C-alpha cells in the first residue's frame, strides 16, 4: 500500500510520459522512442493502481486474468490486421474505449463507496455530474464508432442514410440528455442513469448514419476526440491525474485532426456532421452528364510516356487501398528509378479513409518517407513534372474546385495535377467520385485514362517498362 500522494505523483509521471509519446511523433526517427514512453507510462499507471489498492487477494488474480485475455486478443489483432484495414481497426478500438468508460461509470454509480464518491442514492453532486458526462460521451463514442466501423468494413452501406425529421430528432435527444443529467443529479434515481445511457447510445448511432464514406476521416478523428473527453470525464470522477491529462491530450488531438480534415475538404465541421453531400448530388450528376470525349490508353502507352519522362509524381487515393496496389506501385517506381527517373509521391490531406492513411500504406510497401510529400510541399512541382500518375484518387485532383464557384467542392484545396505535361489516370470507369461530380481532368487534352483495376494496371505497366 502506498500513500495517496505518492501514487498521485506517479500518475503525474505517467501523464508526462504520454505527452512525450505524442511529442515523439513529430518525426519518424523519434516516434519509436515515443511509443516506448507511452508503454512505460501505461505500465507505471497500472502498477501504481495495484500498489495503491494493496489488496492482492483472489480478485487480483482475476484482474490479471482479464488483462491477459484482453491483452492477447489485442496483440493478436495488432499482428494480424492488414495495413489497409487501419481505419476499421481504429474505429473498432475507439468503440472499446467508449464502452470501457461506460462500464467504469456504471460500476462507480452502483458502488460509489469503492471510489470514495459517497453512497448509493447519495453520491457527491460533482462526481455525479462528471460521471454522467463521462458515461454519456462514452456511450456516444461507442455506438458512433460501431457505425463508423460497419461503414468502413462495408457491412453497412457507405452512402449517407438520411430520413425526414432527422435533425429535429437529434436535437431533441441532445436536449433530452441534458435534462436527464439534470434530473439524475437532482433525484439520484438510477432510472434516469439507465435512460441517459440508452439515449446516449441512440444519439451516437443517429449522428453517424447520415455521414458518407469519404467523410470518414472527419468522423474517425471526431470519435477519437470524444473517446478522450470520455476518459477525461471519468478521470475527474476518479480524481486521477493520469486520466485527466490523457483525456485532454486525446481530446485535443482528435479535435485538431478533425479540423485538418475539414480544412482539407473546405467544409465546416457542422456541414460534415449534418450529412454527406454525396446524398443529394447523386441523382443530378447522372442525369445531366454530357458525353465528352476522353482519351483512353493501355499499359503500353503509359509505360512509353513514363519511360520518356524525367520526373513522375504519383497521386495515390483510397482506390489504391481498395485494390491493395501499394506493393505493385512500389515495384513500378523501382523500375522507373532504375531508368534514372525522379519519382515523388503527393498526398492530399483527405486521401484515404483516415488521416495519414496513404502514408502508412506507402511505408508498408517500403517507400522511403522522404519521397512522400504533403499537398503544400509538392503542389508547385506539378508544373515542372512530366507525368502525374493518379492511382485511386479522384475528387482531390478535380480542377473544378479552383474554377467553378457553383461546384460543391469549390474552394477545396486540390492537387494541381493538370499542370503536368501529361496525366495518367488509373480508374475503373468514368463514374464520378464521392462528391458526385464529374472530374474535369478526365476530358483534358493532356490526360490519358487507363481503365483498369489499379493493381493490375500497375503490374502491366511495370512489365512494359
Amino acid at each position, binding site marked *: 500500500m502506498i500513500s495517496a500522494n505518492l501514487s498521485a505523483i506517479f500518475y503525474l509521471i505517467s501523464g508526462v510520459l504520454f505527452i512525450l509519446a505524442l511529442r515523439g511523433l513529430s518525426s519518424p526517427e523519434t516516434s*519509436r522512442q515515443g511509443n516506448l514512453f507511452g508503454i512505460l507510462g501505461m505500465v507505471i499507471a497500472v502498477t501504481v493502481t495495484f500498489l495503491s489498492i494493496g489488496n492482492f487477494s483472489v480478485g487480483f488474480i482475476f484482474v490479471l486474468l482479464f488483462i491477459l485475455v484482453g491483452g492477447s486478443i*489485442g496483440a493478436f489483432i495488432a499482428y494480424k490486421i492488414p495495413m489497409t484495414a487501419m481505419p476499421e481497426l*481504429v474505429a473498432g*478500438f475507439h468503440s472499446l474505449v467508449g464502452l470501457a468508460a461506460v462500464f467504469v461509470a456504471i460500476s462507480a454509480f*452502483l458502488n460509489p463507496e469503492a471510489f470514495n464518491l459517497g453512497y448509493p442514492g447519495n453520491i457527491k453532486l460533482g462526481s455525479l455530474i462528471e460521471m454522467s458526462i463521462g458515461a454519456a460521451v462514452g456511450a456516444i463514442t461507442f455506438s458512433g464508432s460501431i457505425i463508423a466501423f460497419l461503414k468502413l468494413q462495408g457491412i453497412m452501406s457507405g452512402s449517407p442514410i438520411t430520413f425526414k425529421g432527422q435533425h429535429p430528432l437529434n436535437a431533441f435527444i441532445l436536449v433530452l440528455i441534458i435534462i436527464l443529467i439534470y434530473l439524475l443529479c437532482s433525484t439520484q434515481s438510477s432510472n434516469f442513469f439507465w435512460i441517459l445511457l440508452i439515449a446516449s447510445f441512440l444519439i451516437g448511432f443517429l449522428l453517424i448514419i447520415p455521414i458518407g464514406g469519404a467523410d470518414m476521416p472527419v468522423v474517425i478523428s471526431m470519435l477519437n476526440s470524444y473517446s478522450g473527453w470520455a476518459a477525461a470525464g471519468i478521470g475527474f470522477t476518479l480524481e486521477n491525474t493520469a486520466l485527466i491529462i490523457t483525456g485532454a491530450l486525446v481530446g485535443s488531438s482528435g479535435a485538431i485532426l478533425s479540423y485538418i480534415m475539414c480544412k482539407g475538404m473546405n467544409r465546416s465541421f457542422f456541414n460534415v456532421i449534418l450529412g454527406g453531400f454525396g446524398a443529394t448530388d447523386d441523382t443530378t450528376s447522372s442525369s445531366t452528364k454530357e458525353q465528352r470525349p476522353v482519351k483512353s490508353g493501355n499499359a503500353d502507352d503509359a509505360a512509353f510516356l513514363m519511360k520518356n519522362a524525367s520526373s513522375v509524381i504519383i497521386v495515390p487515393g483510397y482506390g489504391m487501398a481498395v485494390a491493395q496496389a501499394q506493393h505493385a506501385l512500389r515495384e513500378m517506381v523501382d523500375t522507373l528509378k532504375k531508368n534514372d527517373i525522379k519519382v515523388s509521391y503527393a498526398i492530399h490531406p483527405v486521401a484515404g479513409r483516415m488521416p495519414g492513411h496513404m502514408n502508412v500504406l506507402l511505408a508498408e510497401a517500403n517507400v522511403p518517407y522522404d519521397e512522400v510529400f504533403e499537398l503544400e510541399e509538392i503542389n508547385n512541382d506539378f508544373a515542372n513534372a512530366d507525368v502525374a500518375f493518379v492511382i485511386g484518387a479522384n475528387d482531390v485532383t478535380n480542377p473544378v474546385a479552383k474554377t467553378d464557384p457553383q461546384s460543391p467542392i469549390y474552394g477545396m484545396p486540390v492537387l494541381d495535377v493538370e499542370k503536368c505535361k501529361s496525366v495518367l489516370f488509373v480508374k475503373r470507369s468514368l463514374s464520378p467520385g464521392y462528391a458526385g461530380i464529374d472530374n474535369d481532368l478526365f476530358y483534358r487534352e493532356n490526360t490519358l485514362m487507363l481503365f483498369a483495376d489499379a493493381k493490375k494496371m500497375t503490374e502491366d505497366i511495370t512489365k512494359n517498362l
Partner: protein
Amino acid sequence: MEIDPLIFRLSIFILSIFVGYYVVWSVTPSLHTPLMSVTNAISSVIIVGAIIAGLSGNSNSIFNNSSIFGFLAIALAAINIFGGFLVTQRMLAMYKKKKKNK
C-alpha cells in the same frame, strides 16, 4: 479558505488541453495514423478506473453487480492497450528513410 481540489484538477485539465494542442500540431502529417492508434492506446489508461472497480468486491463475492462491469472494462481496455501500442509499433517500424547507397 481552502481551494476545492476540483479546481486543481480543472487547472491540470485545461493546461493539458493546451499542451495537447501544441504537441499535436507538431506531429508530422505522415504520422497521423500512428497518432490515432497511439492516442487510442493511451486513452485506455481508463483501465486504472476499471481495476479499482473490479477490485471493489469483497473476498466472498469477487463478482458482484458492480465489479463485474469493472472486469469487463479491464478486458476491453486491455485489448486497446496491447492492440494500440503494438499496432503503432508495427506501423512505426515501417517508416524508413531512403537508402543512401542505392
